[in-house]
């Protein structure tokens, strides 16, 4: 596949445009989505701790609150980067025709694509980090651990943003975006060990959950409780999926713009 021409300035300029739009509309675009993982953290944390108390993770007992904190960070990363990649880019591609306008400037398809990708990644990072900050204030995740978790969050945000872009390129109508949300994102959120250990799932379902990318991200974010034995394979898996997703997203979107 031909690698699109990309310039650092071009990518930054596209990202900057999206960031300025976000700045203008932050009350609407920032507050509601950011509350989602935080509400889950509070609701699951306060609601289920009296019932669950502790869970066994990596052979060791941990409090339920400590267990779900990284899960909710991963959830923030997943939801925000995927939704921005899917809905945000779909709207810019098909309704606002922002991509078309940008391509009349001295920008290439590569600049616009990577700028959109990194913007969706940024939104995943913002929500993941703020959920982490809430967990820190609550005393269930340490500031140092959040700092060390940033590269994992970045990897997850890059991947889920790119998966969102695939959907933005593949969907003909905005309603089509619901299909991967209910067929992939929600099942991944519920099955991948964000709020219960995957060990409790039956064999086949656990095997499926284990290979879903959110499972790798959650396991990596739980590093304060011990990394999984094959932690490097988790990283490699996320990197490989990101590269495949990027290639697919380019393939889906490019023909809609460049003939």
């Amino acid at each position, binding site marked *: 596949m031909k690698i699109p021409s990309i*310039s650092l300035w071009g990518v930054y300029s596209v990202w*900057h445009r999206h960031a300025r*739009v976000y700045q203008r509309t932050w009350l609407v675009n920032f507050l509601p989505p950011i509350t989602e993982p935080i509400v889950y953290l509070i609701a699951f944390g306060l609601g289920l701790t009296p019932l669950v108390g502790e869970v066994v993770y990596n052979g060791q007992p941990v409090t339920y609150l400590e267990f779900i904190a990284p899960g909710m960070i991963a959830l923030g990363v997943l939801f925000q980067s995927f939704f921005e990649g899917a809905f945000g880019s779909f709207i810019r591609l098909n309704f606002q025709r*922002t991509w078309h*306008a940008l*391509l*009349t400037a*001295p920008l*290439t398809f590569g600049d616009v694509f990577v700028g959109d990708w990194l913007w969706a990644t940024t939104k995943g990072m913002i929500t993941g980090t703020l959920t982490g900050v809430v967990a820190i204030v609550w005393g269930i995740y340490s500031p140092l651990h959040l700092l060390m978790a940033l590269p994992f969050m970045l990897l997850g945000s890059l991947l889920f943003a790119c998966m969102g872009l695939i959907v933005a390129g593949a969907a003909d109508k905005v309603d089509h975006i619901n299909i991967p949300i209910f067929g992939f994102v929600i099942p991944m959120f519920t099955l991948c060990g964000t709020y219960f250990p995957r060990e409790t799932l039956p064999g086949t379902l656990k095997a499926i959950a284990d290979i879903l990318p959110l499972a790798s991200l959650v396991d990596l974010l739980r590093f304060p409780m011990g990394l999984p034995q094959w932690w490097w394979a988790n990283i490699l898996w996320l990197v490989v999926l990101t590269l495949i997703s990027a290639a697919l997203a380019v393939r889906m979107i490019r023909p809609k713009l*460049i003939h």
Partner: protein
Amino acid sequence: MAQTLPTLPRDTAALSAYDLWKSYGDRPVVQGVSFTLNPGEVLGLLGPNGAGKTTTVGMLYGLVTPSRGFVRMGTFDVKSDGRRARDRMGIVTQEDNLDPDFTVIDNLIFFAHHYRLRGAAARRRAGELLAELELEDYAQYAVEQLSGGLKRRVVLARALINQPQVVFLDEPTTGLDPDARQEFWKLVIRLRKMGCGVLLTTHYMDEAQRLCDRLILLQQGKMIDQGTPPELIERTVGTEVVELEGVAEDQLQQVAATYQTWCRSFGNGYVLSLSGDRAPQIWDALVALQPEQITRRSANLEDVFLRLTGRMLE
């Protein structure tokens, strides 16, 4: 003493298209289109819907990759050096793809960023453009609050941010009311005076006739003729035509055959070319047919198109 004349550079064209072809599958959309656009010239690309105008414009700025041929913007090849080529181009697409989240002035300021114009320089340039295009009163308006004509003007202002050498206007006045169209025409004339090369695609013949220094006629992706509007009219239809209604077609065809002139149906009646020295005789012969209505008028580009393509522009 022999005087040495100054020599012009070999290629003074602002934009050159060389043998452009584009096919989608087996379907050819553009076939062998070549032309140059000079500074300070308005070049019209005319054709009915589906003639390949927008595809040609897409190839000119790199959105459509030619199946064959290439485009040069000055010395830059659009395909391999699109970024630098577009740095010198201003592109007004058919659709108004302004940023609805920004005000009018912010649309310009944030677009200027793509040209590395930032901060005070971007604000200054945006202010200049708003003044030039008489948009100052709308600087703080949201895009949705603007009329169609004003939106087109903002899209043009956005295209002019980097003081382009070439401006593409792809059906810029489609959907505008007559006042807004005339206001837009004034801007095109101003661009020409500023030395910009302007490439205009339109299917409004009056627009093409008023604005264009030179025209290229496209049909089914092929260039079928080119020249100045008066040249094309004179060469194709002559200077005058007659429109007439309420006359038998066979009688009319007989007159056309006798004087070897062009005739075809037109609306509810017919149009016939009054060409050459025999115009008075043709006119007398037509009057003798006692048509219900007969009008003599100057030939225009609509007649040219009717003759060359056999159809009216939609």
